[in-house]
């Protein structure tokens, strides 16, 4: 049985416009279940816990990255499957799991292809967070903090992208002292560090650590055209490890594209695994 947690404010209230259609599609696919709505901050964790207590086999987050992240962080183990219907302003997490939009998400939920994934855990002074995809430290995390959402209109989008570029120009390179697997000690000067969860690939290490010194001009132009932040991440160094400790202070940290706090930060594979419903390309 499916348990749907709706964030009514996600995507500027997009869910309110599509709710009836969405319920109709889910019902036709034979996966209608209980729908619950969050009414404010702190609601999503409570609703997730209620769904798990009620014994639902699948918990689905209907919203954007922040909704999905919040639900993910309260999934206790791999007995209950976790799904996403992306209707938020930013839906990177869904996209990285092979879920392109809310319509296709319904089909993906019905197909119920699940993968039991190792998830990462990041600990900062603000607490601990779980993540599926990646941790960003530096410029990208700063952008996530200052520009948490992307506008839909083209003109506002271009303004938004130019604002991000301005932010990236005024961003000073930082020096980071780090430690990998308690055996490799290093110093890096640059603008971005990305730590990607590669634990479920044919890799003997859980994380790929990518370090970026600067942003080349050609990539800036591509970014203005597309708004794709990955163009601002042209990595110069790549390392692999299972446990990463970022020692330097006060550099912004984002988990799965959500700003979560600042360094120092410790990143490792979490003790729990999550069963996630993924798209066919995954």
């Amino acid at each position, binding site marked *: 049985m499916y348990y749907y947690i709706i964030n009514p404010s996600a995507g500027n209230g997009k869910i309110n416009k599509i709710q009836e259609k969405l319920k109709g599609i889910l019902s036709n696919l034979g996966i209608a279940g209980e729908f619950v709505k969050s009414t404010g901050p702190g609601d999503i964790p409570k609703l997730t816990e209620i769904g798990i207590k009620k014994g639902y086999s699948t918990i689905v987050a209907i919203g954007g990255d922040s909704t999905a992240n919040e639900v993910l962080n309260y999934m206790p183990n791999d007995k209950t499957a976790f799904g996403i219907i992306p209707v938020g302003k930013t839906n*990177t997490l869904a*996209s*990285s799991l*092979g879920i*392109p939009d809310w319509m296709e998400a319904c089909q993906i939920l019905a197909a119920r292809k699940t993968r039991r994934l190792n998830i990462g855990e990041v600990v900062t002074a603000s607490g601990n967070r779980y993540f*599926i*995809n*990646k941790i960003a430290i530096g410029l990208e995390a700063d952008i996530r903090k200052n520009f948490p959402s992307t506008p839909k209109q083209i003109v506002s989008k271009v303004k938004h992208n130019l604002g991000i570029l301005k932010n990236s120009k005024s961003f000073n390179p930082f020096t980071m002292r780090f430690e*990998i697997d308690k*055996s*490799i*000690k*290093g*110093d*890096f*000067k*640059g603008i971005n560090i*990305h730590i*990607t*969860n*590669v634990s479920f*690939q044919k*890799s*003997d290490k859980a994380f*790929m650590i990518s*370090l970026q*010194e600067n942003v080349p001009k050609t990539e800036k132009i591509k970014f203005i055209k597309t708004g*794709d932040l*990955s163009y601002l*991440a042209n*990595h*110069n*160094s*790549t*390392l*692999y490890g299972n446990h990463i400790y970022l020692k330097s202070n006060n550099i912004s940290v984002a988990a799965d594209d959500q700003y979560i706090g600042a360094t120092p930060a410790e990143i490792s594979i979490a003790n729990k695994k999550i069963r996630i419903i993924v798209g066919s*390309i*995954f």
Partner: protein
Amino acid sequence: MAKKDDFFKMGSQETVIGHTVKLKGNLKSQHDIVIDGELTGDIDSESTVTIGHGAIVSAGIKAKNVVISGNLEGDIDAEISVEITQTGKVLGNIKSASLSIDAGAFFEGQSSMKGTKEPPLKTAAEVQNKDNDIKPFFE
């Protein structure tokens, strides 16, 4: 649509140490290792290790192939080949099946070739004993 840095599209698993990175520790990988920054420690790769131009490395290297265009202080044990390019500088011993040193490169140390040892010459007594073992075809 999925973005270009999505986690299911992982690269070649090559380890790269960029210009602005300084590392202390041992690197071990089944894949290529490229160093353009600074490293102190040992390197062990089942593939190719490249020390880029401007890199400063103080390490023992064990790999299949090694290409040096930067500065290396340490011994190299390469299964197949070692190449010191024009800008390369090596202070250490090299053991490899093949070694090439470009004009302008610097190498101070001993080199020994792997897999090219000639069989030791037999002594007269050994040859004599062997000859005694041969029995005549018709007795």
